[in-house]
């Protein structure tokens, strides 16, 4: 038995070490950099203690970007979940053209975010884009898609929803297809209609998958960057500036490497804590024991 354990360890060790190297080294290095004053003028890992962390607590722009990110990520993910679930329900039972419909739904997810962001920016270009042509035809006049804070936020959310609803759709469809048939047969025999079946059978049975899908998407949405970078550059003003974009500005544009590392570490800690709490709440609320 002991020999078996030793063999297991020997075989697992290389992979484990590589994994640790890939995950831990950048993390530890980032933490170390966050205690340095590395910038464009003073390169290298000097030691300035917690100066960067002290600075970020007084950095209103960082905290604003974080709360803005929360609003954008929450709204996007909820919309993606609702739409993704709806589409999955549609395709789940549909027999005709099921395969082609599923592929069509997945196309947005398979496109490159930066390329799609460029296309969306063109669509929402207020002088030349078709979005305002359409708005004009509908009698809505010229909408300041990218030059008004609220509209710019709507555009960022819209693009994210367009791109990532298919991901929700895919996960939830897989979940629906894996559900046992018996509860649905029992509900039908008991005379339950489609709405009652959904709320009493489908939704509870899908709860664990829903929680997983929501958490995965929240993690992804909290890193939203390409869309903001290409479409609004965080503007107008700072109205669409998210945490990752702000960290990008500080780190790679202003080249305040040490400070950006402190921002990244703080952001990571906040995200781990927040997402853990959200996962617990969702599990407690949605997943019934034995589901």
């Amino acid at each position, binding site marked *: 038995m002991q020999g078996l354990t030793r063999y297991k360890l020997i075989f697992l060790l290389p992979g484990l070490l590589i994994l640790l190297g890939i995950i831990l080294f950048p993390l530890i290095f980032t933490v170390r950099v966050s205690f340095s004053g590395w910038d464009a003028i003073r390169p290298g890992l000097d030691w300035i203690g917690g100066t960067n962390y002290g600075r970020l607590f007084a950095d209103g722009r960082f905290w604003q970007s974080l709360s803005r990110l929360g609003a954008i990520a929450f709204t996007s993910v909820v919309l993606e979940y609702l739409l993704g679930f709806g589409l999955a329900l549609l395709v789940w039972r549909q027999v005709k053209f099921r395969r082609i419909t599923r592929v069509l739904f997945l196309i947005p997810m398979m496109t490159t975010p930066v390329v799609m962001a460029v296309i969306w920016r063109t669509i929402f270009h*207020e002088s030349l884009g078709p979005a305002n042509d359409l708005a004009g035809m509908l009698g809505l006049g010229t909408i300041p898609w990218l030059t008004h804070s609220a509209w710019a936020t709507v555009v960022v959310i819209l693009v994210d929803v367009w791109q990532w609803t298919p991901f929700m759709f895919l996960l939830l469809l897989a979940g629906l297809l894996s559900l046992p048939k018996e509860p649905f047969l029992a509900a039908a025999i008991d005379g339950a209609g489609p709405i009652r079946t959904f709320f009493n059978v489908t939704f509870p049975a899908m709860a664990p998958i829903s929680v997983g899908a929501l958490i995965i998407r929240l993690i992804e949405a909290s890193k939203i960057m390409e869309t903001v970078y290409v479409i609004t*550059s965080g503007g107008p003003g700072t109205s669409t500036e998210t945490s990752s974009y702000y960290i990008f500005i500080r780190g*790679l*544009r202003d080249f305040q490497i040490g400070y950006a590392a402190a921002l990244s570490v703080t952001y990571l800690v906040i995200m781990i804590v927040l997402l853990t709490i959200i996962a617990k709440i969702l599990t407690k609320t949605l997943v019934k024991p034995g589901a």
Partner: protein
Amino acid sequence: MKHKLLMGAVSALAIVSASTGYSQEDYTRFGIEADIPGMCSYASMDAKDYSGRTLNIISHAIPVIGEPTALHAQQFEELTGAKVNVVHVPFGDLFQRILIPFQTNQNAYDVLFYASLWIGDLNSYLAPVPEAYQNSPGMQDVTRNYIDVATWDGQMIQYPMDGDRHYLKYRTDIFSDPAMQERFKSETGRDLTVPATWEEYNEVARVFSGWDWSGDGTNNYGSAEVAKRDDLMFSAFISRAAAFAKHPDVKGGFFFDLETMEPLINTPGFVRGLELFIEASKDWAPGGANFGLGDEIFSFGGGQALMSYSWDDAFIQAQQEDSPIRNNVAAAPLPGASQVWNRDTGQWDTFDEPNRAPYITWGWTSAVSNRSQNQDMAFDYLCFFSNEANTLSDLQIGRFGVNPYRESHFDADLWTNKLGWDESLAASYVETLSSMDTSQNRVFDLRVPGVNQFMT
């Protein structure tokens, strides 16, 4: 005896030819009109042998600067036998891709193409341009502006290959149209003239915004400006503020008071520029507040806007062969200010002739890393890149992003003969550009370490 004399003459000619790099070989296969003799010429490079050596270059993405970098790298390879690797990087990544290898003691690139205002951050990593290259005819022809831009602490460490500045562009067909002139006069009470002040600029923009003055069925607008966040908007703002904040009689810093190092950005001159910038935004095209450089180029170059002010791109776009407004545009100096803030006296001074402050902004440049083991080859490449024949060709291709930076480029005939520009248009272009280079009240970009925190 006769035979000996002839042989001697031929030998002497061969020696002279070799020393000047001049030969009769036809290099037009490289797309140039003719090789121009000199130490950077095709013939001179052809005489060199860099076989077995590799040159690593980092440059911008294709096409702006990236395309000529790659083109001339390929030609250099063919002529010298060197292997040249060109890495193309999107602009947002370029700064860190250059700086990180330097900061981490890597010798990643021999030659760098980048924004000239980064000299404050990069100067300690750059090799001085050798005397021989500084004395070459091509370099001697570079205007004082761009020699200064390439110089740090009295030493030339950047190799000039582009000349950028902001100037005004406007539609001559509209400004000279009697119906438009009448409409303008009836609305403002004054004649329609090319704006001499920023107040006039805003007034013209207001009158010509929101209606179809071009007759193509869509609304036109008075002004297109680079106003998008993080998309070179700083240059547009400084263009507007410079005339109010740069007093010709006040010395000792434009962005900072050089005695106290107090930032001057909140002084009344800059504030006035900002106020007029905000006022103008009411008359921009829909989405104008989110116009990046590409939008501004398209808006003016495509005929949507009456005026704009930035680099050459929009002008070149307007002058494309297929442009509907080709030869209906002209260049002029940036508008000025009748009242200029004097920080010495703490008062506004009134000027009879509007104060102009030409803004020499941005500009691509090149340099050689001081860690390069191939500095000889690297400088030869840059010398070849910017030789007279190549530059003449590059200037004619708008997407290359190479703009006039030599005295010889300010010859109106060049633009008329080579590109078919109208004579008056070509004259307005070269006069505007050359007058900026000789102005005594020029404004340059801030060039301090960490400049990207201030100018984005």
